[in-house]
């Protein structure tokens, strides 16, 4: 059990960076390099500000934070967001002159700012409004006409800009450039008409655009999904954790009238620093979707028909009772809470279910947790980070932000081992590009080049390991990780499996037993060995890379029981569908990719008759004659902390509601790594790379109307020279085929793709590339022909 605090505050060693200063006569302890405003924020004395953000570089743009500092020639006014603290410094924030200057600044800012607060979304939570009251003059001397611009213009599908309200604090533009690395909005027409703008007719297409709305200190930037939905004082809010991906960003869930209306990022120091990606921020729309499952469905001759819970559960029990011993399988569980996973694992134990897997053959084996574990902070402070992972910008966006920031500030050096350019390629110290299946050679190159060896010996090394290519077997990556871990000193692994609570589910009993993973389970099902397949929020027909295997597995199962929030491609084939409560509709805890347990909260009542997964499991157990003695969520949490190794720290419940508690993972016996003989290229000249984009057909994205349109759609990306060789033009259709199947996709030229390889985004609207994937092969080779 370890906690997140890395510094021991009680250390008696005198800190050479410690500084003592006074603010309004009170002695304040500060650290060298800190700004005055940051030191003041630890006291009761609030300094007004608009452009200052503790996670971004100061720019001194708004001049609102002027304070008085005693200097050699008497007191002088300084911007406290750009003046460093100093030993013996005397700062005053409450004198008459400070007050007059701050009032003057507010008056200036309001010279052009419209007083449309009653119709402004920001009204009620607006720093300008609040500080105009607390630090403003009350009245303005300006009688002139205010500046006018066209009222809100959309700068992307998600964000609207009202330039009249903008006070030019540079927060959004700085965020786009400095934090997100997407400087697609900038100040234009500098001078009298300075305004924030995109390039003409080019949207602010950043995965992080929602953060600019959150940090905007006025109502200039508003988010389309929240506009005119509520007033801040009508919102109920609770701190929670986003479970869209496994980064586990801390959020505030805001709801009104039993409907989730907005998520805001919360600054969690070890995790997300206040940022969220747009997918996580806006996919609450899916919770409110009218397509949610309302009642249990039971298959009859007329298809799936609504039934009562009593009937559906009785039917489920009948199916479970009549299954042959050892013929029940559970797939999924990574989208729920820890408590959900534990309860289902208990039910699985009860029924003697050996076939279980929380992943869908699209991750890495759970043995990845057996290596020494790294946290996000470890990765961002290591000397070297080795990426053996999918494009983090696409899959785990906020982890991308953290690593990008660390690399930009030259705190870490990134060695990327990848098959195509990723979001982090331009920030990598070295990018070692390799063909799919050739990780071993790439790793050998990294381990044997003198320059790299020297770098690897400079200090801590963190391997960021995940499934980078779904057209390639997972054990290639595992072998590569193993080769690094067994060779390099001071090494640890940050596993980047993707689904929200995949680590929790795997750690709490839904990990495969004896290597019977999802692929093996589906194979068994295809061979008629599965009487009952339980899909716990899983959709094999959409997510398992090998489409043919998924289809045969679903077809071969005698009965399918699906527990889900929506009807999906797989659950339409189910015999019984039980509606599950979604995120925001249930309390619990979740485990992020580091093994950090944080809480998720219930903000609204579950949709219609839906119930949390854990409740369904406990009820089924009772109906099967095995009362687990669980009545409440707390009962489960107590049982987890008492019985599950590594989760004993959960009882530190306060921490779980803040920065979380890290679970300890017992070392797992080393994996038997093996690597396939890499097949020689034959006539199939393109080696396939299949990976996810941020926006795909995942249910929470597809069911959020603001996000659904952002998915790029199916296509095949090849190097421009290869495209020329094929004889196709950018945008024209090509035939992609292996020896058995062929699909037709639009082709795109991209220099991010290596020659001789083809990149296809996964799970997109349009033709399904998974038809060409076979997990039995180490790699997938295809032919591309112009048509």
């Amino acid at each position, binding site marked *: 059990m370890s906690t997140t605090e890395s510094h021991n505050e009680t250390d008696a060693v005198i800190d050479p960076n410690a500084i003592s200063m006074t603010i309004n006569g009170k002695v304040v302890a500060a650290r060298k390099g800190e700004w005055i405003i940051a030191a003041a924020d630890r006291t009761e004395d609030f300094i007004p500000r608009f452009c200052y953000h503790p996670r971004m570089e100061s720019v001194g743009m708004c001049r609102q934070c002027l304070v008085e500092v005693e200097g050699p020639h008497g007191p002088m006014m300084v911007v406290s967001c750009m003046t460093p603290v100093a030993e013996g410094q005397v700062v005053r924030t409450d004198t008459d002159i400070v007050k007059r200057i701050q009032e003057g600044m507010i008056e200036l800012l309001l010279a052009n700012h419209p007083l449309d607060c009653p119709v402004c979304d920001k009204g009620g939570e607006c720093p300008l409004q609040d500080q105009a009251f607390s630090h403003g003059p009350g009245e303005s001397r300006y009688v002139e006409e205010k500046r006018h611009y066209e009222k809100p213009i959309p700068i992307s599908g998600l964000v609207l800009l009202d330039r009249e309200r903008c006070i030019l604090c540079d927060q959004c533009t700085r965020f786009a450039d400095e934090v997100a690395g997407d400087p697609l909005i900038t100040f234009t027409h500098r001078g009298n008409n300075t305004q924030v*703008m995109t*390039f003409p007719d080019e949207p602010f297409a950043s995965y992080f655009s929602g953060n600019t709305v959150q940090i905007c200190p006025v109502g200039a930037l508003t988010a389309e999904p929240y506009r005119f939905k509520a007033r801040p004082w009508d919102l109920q809010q609770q701190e929670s954790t986003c479970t869209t991906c496994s980064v586990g960003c801390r959020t505030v869930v805001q709801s009104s009238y039993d409907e989730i209306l907005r998520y805001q990022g919360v600054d969690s120091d070890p995790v997300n620093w206040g940022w969220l990606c747009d997918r996580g921020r806006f996919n609450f729309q899916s919770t409110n979707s009218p397509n949610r499952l309302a009642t249990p469905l039971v298959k009859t001759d007329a298809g799936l028909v609504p039934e009562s819970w009593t009937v559906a559960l009785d039917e489920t029990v009948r199916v479970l009772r009549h299954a042959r011993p050892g013929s029940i399988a559970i797939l999924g569980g990574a989208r729920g809470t820890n408590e959900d996973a534990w309860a289902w694992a208990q039910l699985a134990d009860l029924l003697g279910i050996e076939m279980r897997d929380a992943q869908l053959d699209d991750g890495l084996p759970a043995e990845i947790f057996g290596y020494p574990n790294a946290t996000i902070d470890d990765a961002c402070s290591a000397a070297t980070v080795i990426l053996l992972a999918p494009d983090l910008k696409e899959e785990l966006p906020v982890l991308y932000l953290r690593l990008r920031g660390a690399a930009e500030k030259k705190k870490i050096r990134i060695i990327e081992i990848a098959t195509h350019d990723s979001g982090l390629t331009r920030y990598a110290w070295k990018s070692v590009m390799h063909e799919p299946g050739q990780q071993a050679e790439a790793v050998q190159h990294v381990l044997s080049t003198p320059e790299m060896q020297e770098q690897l010996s400079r200090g801590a090394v963190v391997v960021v390991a995940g499934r980078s290519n779904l057209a390639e077997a997972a054990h290639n990556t595992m072998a590569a990780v193993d080769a690094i871990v067994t060779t390099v000193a001071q090494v640890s692994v940050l596993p980047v499996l993707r689904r929200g609570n995949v680590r929790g589910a795997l750690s709490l009993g839904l990990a495969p037993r004896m290597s019977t993973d999802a692929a093996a389970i589906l194979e068994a099902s295809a061979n008629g060995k599965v009487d009952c397949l339980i899909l716990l929020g899983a959709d094999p027909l959409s997510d398992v890379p090998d489409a043919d295997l998924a289809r045969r597995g679903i077809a071969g199962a005698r009965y399918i029981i699906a527990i889900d929030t929506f009807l999906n491609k797989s659950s339409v084939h189910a015999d019984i569908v039980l509606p599950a409560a979604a995120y925001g509709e249930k309390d619990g805890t979740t485990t992020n990719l580091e093994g950090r347990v944080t809480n998720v909260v219930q903000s609204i009542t579950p949709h219609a008759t839906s119930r949390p997964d854990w409740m369904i499991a406990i009820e089924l157990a009772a109906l099967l004659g095995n009362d687990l003695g669980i009545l409440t969520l707390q009962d489960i949490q107590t049982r987890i902390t008492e019985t599950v190794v590594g989760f004993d720290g959960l009882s530190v419940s306060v921490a779980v509601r803040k920065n979380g508690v890290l679970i300890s993972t017992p070392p797992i016996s080393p994996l038997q790594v093996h690597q396939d003989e890499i097949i020689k290229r034959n006539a199939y000249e393109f080696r396939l790379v299949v990976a996810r984009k941020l926006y795909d057909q995942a249910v929470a994205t597809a069911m959020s109307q603001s996000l659904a349109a952002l998915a790029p759609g199916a296509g095949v990306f090849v190097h421009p020279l290869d495209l020329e060789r094929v004889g196709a033009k950018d945008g024209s259709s090509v035939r992609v085929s292996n020896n058995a199947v062929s699909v037709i996709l639009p082709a795109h030229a991209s220099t991010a793709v290596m020659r001789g390889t083809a990149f296809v985004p996964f799970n997109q609207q349009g033709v399904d590339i998974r038809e060409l994937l076979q997990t039995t092969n180490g790699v997938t080779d295809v032919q591309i022909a112009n048509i």
Partner: protein
Amino acid sequence: MSRLTDAHVALAKEIIGRYPRPKSALVLLLHLAQEQDGYITRDAMVHIAELVGVTSAEVYGTATFYEMFKFEPVGKYVVNICGTMSCALMGSEELMHHAEQRLGIKAGGTTPDGMFTLEHAECQAACTEAPCLQVNYRYRYRLTPADLDALIDDLLANRLTHEIPPHGTVAKVRQHIPSHHGVGVVAPESVTEPPVWLNGKAAL
């Protein structure tokens, strides 16, 4: 409309080579684009962004700071009539009025034949020669309405092409500094000591 021509791309690369960071060449490349098309086209900004490795939004942000970069087509000749103090006293209002009459456009407009754009200008620092104007930033001094008519006639008859190139051309003589003639660019972050002229050891 148009991206930079191949010849201009070659020149752009030469210019970029003079700086430690490609984006330092941004404004010079904008001049190149304006020279090519008479104004800065959207495609040219996209192209320049690719050449110097920034986003097109950043190119746009820099370009829009400068009054003299145009983002809409302007006439072959941009006529700026000064309207500040000295010129105003010496009859620039009358001059502007005459120009508007003669060209049939208001200040800020462009003639339908695409020959002239008329603009108000602030002080052009030729107060002793008031009233003055600039055609494509080339001076004309102490103008009467009749002088203006003569100037417009000359421009229309292509009698001044040797002196006044079409809008966008900064200079007729093009400076070529191939990289082997350059002073050698050193990125600021790799500079470890003050320059020679600052270290006190330079021969003065």
